[in-house]
């Protein structure tokens, strides 16, 4: 009974808080304090959102953005994962690649877009490459750190049992680094989503970023907020999926630790 009450309170406080925020926003928009143009009331944003969902406009943009993100994440994430695991396991690989990666990692990936447009063309390839680059580094760094934090005793046991190659990878490296790899995947997805939207802002005619751009070009701020809302929901959903994946793949972790993904 006490637990049920505590659970209810856990949801009640934030819900009431956000309802109050929305109500205050709704009634103050258009007054002297809050500009209706730049901060339209939530009801107007909701109305725009419903209209865009009904006519399929928003879903079309969402689908395109998700496709770009998925492709970029799959390419960049998987490459980063493999290289990261290898660099975590092999000192030689680390010594060869680390200086180059340290130099490339801080480069703003978006600044490469014009060059990539020239090299890969104006279509989807150049956009996906930038997104892949943004997903590559967080995944690589976390995968490498994940392997390196596996304790010495585990390595010694593996050596004692002559674990090599795929056995070592399957039994030691992957399970040992998985929590960090999943954290890297979360960072890579969030970074990928941010860059996907930014790339679309700069060079796409369709997609959520392109919708944001058009909203600014026409100063239709309800469309701007409706799109931002969809992007935020997309971010929450991708993190929730990772949280679910975390529960399935690393069930030995404490229950609360999975919440970081949700």
């Amino acid at each position, binding site marked *: 009974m006490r637990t049920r009450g505590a659970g209810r309170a856990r949801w009640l406080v934030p819900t009431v808080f956000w309802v109050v925020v929305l109500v205050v926003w709704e009634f103050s928009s258009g007054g002297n304090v809050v*500009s*209706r*143009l*730049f901060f339209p009331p939530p009801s107007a944003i909701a109305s725009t959102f419903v209209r865009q969902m009904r006519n399929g406009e928003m879903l079309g943009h969402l689908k395109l953005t998700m496709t770009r993100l998925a492709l970029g994440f799959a390419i960049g994430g998987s490459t980063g994962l493999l290289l990261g695991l290898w660099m975590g396991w092999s000192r030689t690989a680390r010594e060869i690649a680390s200086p180059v990666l340290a130099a490339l990692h801080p480069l703003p990936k978006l600044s490469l*877009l*014009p060059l990539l*447009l*020239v090299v890969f*063309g*104006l279509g989807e390839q150049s956009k996906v490459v930038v997104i892949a680059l943004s997903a590559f580094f967080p995944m690589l760094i976390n995968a490498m750190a994940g392997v390196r934090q596996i304790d010495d005793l585990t390595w010694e046991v593996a050596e004692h049992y002559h674990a090599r190659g795929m056995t070592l990878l399957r039994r030691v490296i992957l399970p040992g680094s998985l929590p960090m790899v999943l954290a890297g995947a979360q960072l890579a997805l969030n970074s990928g989503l941010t860059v996907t939207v930014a790339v679309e802002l*700069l*060079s*796409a*005619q369709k997609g959520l970023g*392109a919708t944001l751009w*058009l909203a*600014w*070009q*026409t*100063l*239709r701020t309800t469309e701007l907020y409706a799109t931002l809302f969809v992007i935020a929901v997309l971010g929450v959903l991708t993190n929730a999926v990772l949280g679910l994946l975390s529960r399935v793949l690393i069930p030995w972790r404490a229950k609360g630790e999975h919440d970081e993904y949700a």
Partner: protein
Amino acid sequence: MRLKTSTRCMGILAALLAPVLLVSCSGGGLFGKAAPTPAPVTIRLGLLPFVSNTVVQIGIDEGFFAEQGLIVEKTIFKSLSEVFPALASGQIDVATPGSIPALFNLMASGVRVKMVMSLTQHVEAPCSYVALLARKEDVDSGKYADLASWKDARFMSVIGLTGTEAYFLSEALESVGLTIDDLQMEQGPREVHAEALRAGQVDIIFELEPWVTRAQSEGDISVLAPLEPYAPGLQGSTIVYGAKLLDDTDAGTRFAVAYLKAARQYAQGATPRNVEIAAAFSGQDAEFIKKLCWSYVPTDGSLNVPSLMAYQQWMYERGDIDRVMKEDEFIDVRFAKEAVRILDGKDE
């Protein structure tokens, strides 16, 4: 000294012409005295890093604003989407936006922002400020000479199918029964247009100066069609005032006087001094600036109202703006008219 002169002047004639004298002595007109320095007013100015904005920079560098007792605080914005919130919230008082739908929607929303003077107008000239470019061999062979053939070409512009770029194309295509929706349009940053054209990724690119000149610099790209003839006199960009200057007629007029003096200097073209200011302002090489087609900026500040109304109607039909405004809702010509009167009076 000025105070002493004013007092004597008033003492002699006050009884007869007091009301007139008050005006005359304070203005200095009756005895040819210099006007008293007006009270300093700080103007927060939002500029864009385009060569056309050199006009305003001339006003700053040549001291025209200072002459009017205006202290200009300049902010250079990277894009128009940053300008409008700053203007609407009163963080800047004057801006130089291009004629994009957002500007019209901003003004139609009731925010106190109005167009007061012209910056650039796209008029026909020996050189083209706004043009479609294509590979030289295609231009020479006449491949896209027939506008109907544009349907099969791949276009590229910065802003896709909105704004003045789309309007120019729309007006051009109307003569052959096409619309801009019939075009294959790619959107991408200006920096890659020429390379995309050279690499055969697109066939026709839309450019404004300085990109028209830059794209042609290697000799393999040429002007396919100047776009000015398709929407003659189209108002490309304007000087807009926010609430502060719209409500302060004196400061607004002083700004207009300084701006028009600058516009008159800019209209002299690529003089060494103008080139020097433009190069410093835009960060371009002076030799390159000399080659550019200088935009047309009316020296009386007059706006091309019919072009704005026609463009507004087109944007409305495209669904880019929420409503068509009446002229007096978004245009205020008081400042330009008064500034011209003051300047031309002095010039005479």
